[in-house]
């Protein structure tokens, strides 16, 4: 036993010593790892958008894009977030959903825009997705999903793998603490932008009332904090003060009534 422990110690020391010595060299600088990481994320996001375009129609109307971008830019600028790092895409989809992708892309489904009662509500959802991006939730979930899906790579069906990953990313499988963190960030971002965070609570309430009892929403319910819980948390965090509307009346009317 003593011999075994001695030999194990020597082996562990050799391993740790080699690792420590090599880690003193600036590998990440030599290999330009930081820019590679950012580019990789962006490319992954672009790949997801391209794959999503195969199934869903992207709304490319200039006015819709302008309004959505101005909403996103206002939130970003007020919170010192690089506006170029976050892109918003609108897709025609009957599912009331919005999701963030690697590389800072946010996909908003047309039905979600129609579902929102006010621009502040839509701003709340976008701020929530920005919260996921800024808190690094996308990459954490990607790591988990890639790890689980890696076995599929051996089937050689790369498009199938990509679609499965996209399905998983869009299904909203963040854990409850990540959702709460994104909610808190959203309230903070909205307040900084001088947009009322309370309609975000109204959004959760409306989602709970409309879809809470649907069988298809069971997964959403299990991974998201209770709608009532989220509503009360957002209302608690929202300050009682006068805010400005997230969008001018005309812009919101155009966006809301647009024939997607």
């Amino acid at each position, binding site marked *: *036993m003593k*011999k*075994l422990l001695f*030999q*194990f110690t*020597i*082996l562990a020391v050799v*391993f740790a010593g*080699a*690792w*420590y*010595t*090599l*880690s*003193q*060299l*600036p*590998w*990440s600088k030599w*290999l330009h*790892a*930081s820019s*590679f*990481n950012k580019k*990789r*994320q962006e490319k*992954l996001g672009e790949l997801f958008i391209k794959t999503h375009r195969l199934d869903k129609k992207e709304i490319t109307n200039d006015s819709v894009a302008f309004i959505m971008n101005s909403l996103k830019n206002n939130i970003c600028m007020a919170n010192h977030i690089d506006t170029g790092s976050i892109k918003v895409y609108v897709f025609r989809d009957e599912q009331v959903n919005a999701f963030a992708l*690697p590389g800072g892309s946010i996909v908003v489904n047309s039905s979600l825009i129609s579902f929102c009662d006010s621009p502040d509500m839509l701003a709340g959802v976008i701020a929530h997705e920005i919260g996921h991006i800024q808190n*690094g939730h*996308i*990459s*954490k979930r*990607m*790591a988990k999903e*890639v*790890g689980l899906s*890696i*076995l599929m790579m*051996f089937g050689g069906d790369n498009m199938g793998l990509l679609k499965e990953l996209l399905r998983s990313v869009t299904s909203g499988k963040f854990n409850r603490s990540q959702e709460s963190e994104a909610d808190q960030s959203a309230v903070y971002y909205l307040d900084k932008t001088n947009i009322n965070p309370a309609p975000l609570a109204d959004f959760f309430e409306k989602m709970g009332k409309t879809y809470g009892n649907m069988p298809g929403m069971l997964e959403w319910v299990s991974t998201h904090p209770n709608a009532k819980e989220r509503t009360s948390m957002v209302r608690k965090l929202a300050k009682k003060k006068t805010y400005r509307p997230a969008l001018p009346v005309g812009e919101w009317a155009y966006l809301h009534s647009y024939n997607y």
Partner: protein
Amino acid sequence: MLNYKPLEHEKEKASNGYLMSVMAVMAGLPLPIINLLATFLFFILNRRATPFVKWHCTQALVSQLTIFIMNSAALTWTIKAFTGSTPFTDKYFAYIIVVVVFNIVEVVVNISAAIRVRKGATVRWWFWAALTDMLVRKPASPYHAQ
């Protein structure tokens, strides 16, 4: 201890244990579980074999287990880095280099062991041989004092 003279079929089976590890390492990359499963399967198939064969299959298996742990950590870290969950750091690159070197050494010593065992030579690896001695109980091990 080392006076045991293995029979021809024992040498062949024991040698195959190491070859199985080499094949599995090559087939299993980048999924480290494959090589462990293949070696484990070979070990199970030979669990009723003679002490000589069993001892060498066990040595191949325990060495694979070590590589499996190192490769699993490398794979997890790589997935996390590629998906942006953790940054690419100097420590990461250093770890990958060390793991690659260990894998290459593993393949080389496995091939060497397969050849030497086939010729009837004694192959005892640092640490893994001692671990195998502990796992393969005395009556079953050809390398314990009779």
